[in-house]
């Protein structure tokens, strides 16, 4: 037999002045199953909560309804009070008679009538509430960081420095990501390599970080605190333990004409190579596709010159299965291929290059050793045109969004050009200058005022070749006149896009992405580093275009989330989750289609002799977030949501 206690709060005047609480109390006292119904000025106060606790003990209550403010306000308060009085906290419900009744209605009688109905319906619900226990999930204290760019390195270092184990996975042969390709960085113009390489070395040497370069995450299973991750270590054909990084093999490799991806195809590299001189780890890989031995079966020059016998052509890919507690996804970005802008001539004219290619030209470790030379003939360009938004903010051909960093790096390029080529002239076509950030606007002003870049507000319509010059036709919208510039080189500020395989990888990890492939955060403003999947976090440009300071901040934020998660041995979760009745489940998997969290697993029901009787749905309590979509999908009514069961809701409706 139900023994429900109903506690009606006046909230001072807030409820008391609009609702006839005495009438509400007597109505509830007459309701079947109610043992005690009392009113009080402030139930949320300490003496108010004491009253509730006393009533629970005295009347041996089986359920509590507090008619007061919104459950979003004080549900936790009253549930805690119930628990302290020995009543399961999930046997307490809140009737919202303030935000959704006394504050919004003017007629006292009707408001009182509504309050009676609201409270009554929750009494009917609470009669059917079950005792629930918080779900405890153990935590594996080992983090996986996917991506070894600046965001991944920062997250890994922060987590490792807090004393937790980290596995850092990078698919390229070296750490570094895009930041390693940059020449200097805005707004301070410090050399990217100089600030990046110490971090790379620190990450590689950290006793808590296990570094897996040239490796890819192939499978992620499980849930927060308990992921199982499968990683493929691609074969380098170089024994990492034996190799000393002397570089003899790289020197002697007869195949030297391969386009260098790290130099954005502006330079050449051999078939056995490290991406760049400061690579971490400083151990080469053999490019199987271009290696003469793998193509023709003859050569092995590298093996002959290697003094430590590190070269092994028989090497196979290896697989690792790791137990992981939390995952930081920091897979970075790519730049958009600008070939679809036929009018800019990218791909047609060698001297029309991308911003990232310009970085390599300006970089001291680049193909021209930091001298600005145009790719076609190696001549120093006297006039250079930068075209901003070559892809960004262009819904028709490019992408709709702003790539965020192009205004800044174009200003930097104009500056670097002015510093390196004295007497050279830089023109910048822009739509708007977006220089929001510490020291950013001052930086663009410096490019214009001190380094004399000429900024033209307008778009470029065409680039063509005439008398050995690249003719750029555009418009200066501030003057309202067409402009034609005879340039030696054109640099396109191309859009930042997700990695080409970002959408497939989202499925591997089990997170969501937007229409472009940028990964979705749980909440754009309030939970920007978490994903909708508990235990998986986002850092850097895989979430949206970002500059270095933003990527680093987000990476540190991820690290703090991971460290917070690892500060406990057990996770406690709200027990509001879906539960399946295996005896009636028909195994139709409608629920699996509906579940946004991949929480539905297949479970075999076996007979005593071990034969398969049927296969049913099992809802993983660690993954289920309790939305209840599967409940409504379930054709055999086998699934129900704890705390919001069908019976409870029907009872609530019938109580109205």
């Amino acid at each position, binding site marked *: 037999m139900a023994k429900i206690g109903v506690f009606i709060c006046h909230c001072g005047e807030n409820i008391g002045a609009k609702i006839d609480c005495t009438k509400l109390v007597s109505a509830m006292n007459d309701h079947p199953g109610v043992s005690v119904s009392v009113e009080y000025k402030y139930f949320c106060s300490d003496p108010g909560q004491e009253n509730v606790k006393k009533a629970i003990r005295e009347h041996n209550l089986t359920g509590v309804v507090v008619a007061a403010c*919104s*459950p*979003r306000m004080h549900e936790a308060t009253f549930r805690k009070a119930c628990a302290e009085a020995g009543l399961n906290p999930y046997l307490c419900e809140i009737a*919202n008679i*303030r*935000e*959704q*009744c006394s*504050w*919004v*209605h*003017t*007629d006292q009688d*009707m*408001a009182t*009538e*509504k309050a009676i*109905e*609201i409270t009554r*319906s929750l009494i009917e619900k609470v009669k*059917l509430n079950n005792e629930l226990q918080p779900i405890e999930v153990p935590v594996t204290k080992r983090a996986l960081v996917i991506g070894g760019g600046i965001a991944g390195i920062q997250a890994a270092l922060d987590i490792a420095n807090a004393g937790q184990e980290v596995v850092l996975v990078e698919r390229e042969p070296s750490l570094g990501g895009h930041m390693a390709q940059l020449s200097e960085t805005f707004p301070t113009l410090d050399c990217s390599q100089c600030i990046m390489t110490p971090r790379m070395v620190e990450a590689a040497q950290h006793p808590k970080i296990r570094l897996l370069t040239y490796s890819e995450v192939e499978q992620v299973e499980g849930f927060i605190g308990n992921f199982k991750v499968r990683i493929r270590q691609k074969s380098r054909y170089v024994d990492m333990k034996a190799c000393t990084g002397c570089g003899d093999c790289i020197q002697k490799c007869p195949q030297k004409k391969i386009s260098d991806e790290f130099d954005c195809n502006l330079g050449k590299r051999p078939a056995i190579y490290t991406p760049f001189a400061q690579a971490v780890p400083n151990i080469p890989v053999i490019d199987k596709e271009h290696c003469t031995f793998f193509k023709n079966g003859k050569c092995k020059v590298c093996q002959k010159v290697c003094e430590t016998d590190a070269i092994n052509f028989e090497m196979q890919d290896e697989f690792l299965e790791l137990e992981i507690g939390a995952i930081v996804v920091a897979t970075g970005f790519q730049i958009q291929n600008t070939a679809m802008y036929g009018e800019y001539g990218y791909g047609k004219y060698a001297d029309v290059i991308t911003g990232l290619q310009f970085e390599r030209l300006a970089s001291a470790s680049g193909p021209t050793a930091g001298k600005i030379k145009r790719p076609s003939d190696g001549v120093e360009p006297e006039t250079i045109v930068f075209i901003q938004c070559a892809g960004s903010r262009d819904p028709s051909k490019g992408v709709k969004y702003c790539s965020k960093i192009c205004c800044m790096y174009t200003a930097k390029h104009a500056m670097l050009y002015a510093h390196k080529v004295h007497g050279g002239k830089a023109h910048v076509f822009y739509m708007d200058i977006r220089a929001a950030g510490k020291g950013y606007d001052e930086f663009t002003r410096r490019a214009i005022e001190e380094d004399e870049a000429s900024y033209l507000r307008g778009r470029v319509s065409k680039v063509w070749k005439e008398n050995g010059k690249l003719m750029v036709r555009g418009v200066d919208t501030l003057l309202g006149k067409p402009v034609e510039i005879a340039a030696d080189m054109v640099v396109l500020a191309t859009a930042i896009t997700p990695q080409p395989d970002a959408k497939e990888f989202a499925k591997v990890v089990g997170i*969501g992405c937007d229409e472009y492939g940028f990964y*979705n955060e749980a909440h754009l403003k309030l939970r920007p580093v978490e994903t*909708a999947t508990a235990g998986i976090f986002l850092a850097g440009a895989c979430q949206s275009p970002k500059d270095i300071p933003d990527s680093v901040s987000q990476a540190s934020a991820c690290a703090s989330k991971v460290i917070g998660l690892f500060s406990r041995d057990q996770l406690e979760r709200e027990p*509001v989750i879906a539960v399946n009745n295996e005896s009636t489940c028909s195994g139709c998997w409608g629920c699996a289609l*509906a579940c*946004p969290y991949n929480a539905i697993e297949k479970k075999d029901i076996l007979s005593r002799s071990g034969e398969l009787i049927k296969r049913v749905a099992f809802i993983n309590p660690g993954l289920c*977030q*309790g*939305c*209840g*979509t599967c*409940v*409504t*999908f379930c054709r055999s009514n086998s699934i129900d*949501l704890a705390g*919001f069961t*069908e*019976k409870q*809701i*029907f*009872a*609530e*409706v*019938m109580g*109205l």
Partner: protein
Amino acid sequence: MSEPFEPKIVAFVCTYCTYAGADLAGTSRLKYPPNIRMVRLPCTGRISPMFILKALQKGADGVLVSGCHPGDCHFTHGNYHARRRWTVFRALLNFTGIPLERIRFSWISAAEGVKFAELISSLTEDIRKLGPFDQYKAMIHETETPVSL
């Protein structure tokens, strides 16, 4: 005519958007008619068409289903499932003879207190004009066995 007809409207809402929007209407001290009764659920994806029928059976004159805007669902896409289910259920409603005007589907975010108050006011007026929903009550009288829970 004595008193004007006061309809009863049952609302099934998700706790993250519309329930919070209704709370915001309260904290902003907006005013709307007291004919609405809210049933709080974790997500619109949890709302079964059976709830709507149950509410009508119990004597509701109108039903509101409301949740997060498309793309804003706390549970990533429960509201899309709700919308899909609603489109199918609409067709069935027409068949059963329950007028579609009695049931309203809307998106109200946690920031849209004003929209919530306006919706409830207009919905109450619309249902008031339709008058009491008694077709179902007549049907119950003939066919329904007592409800056991």
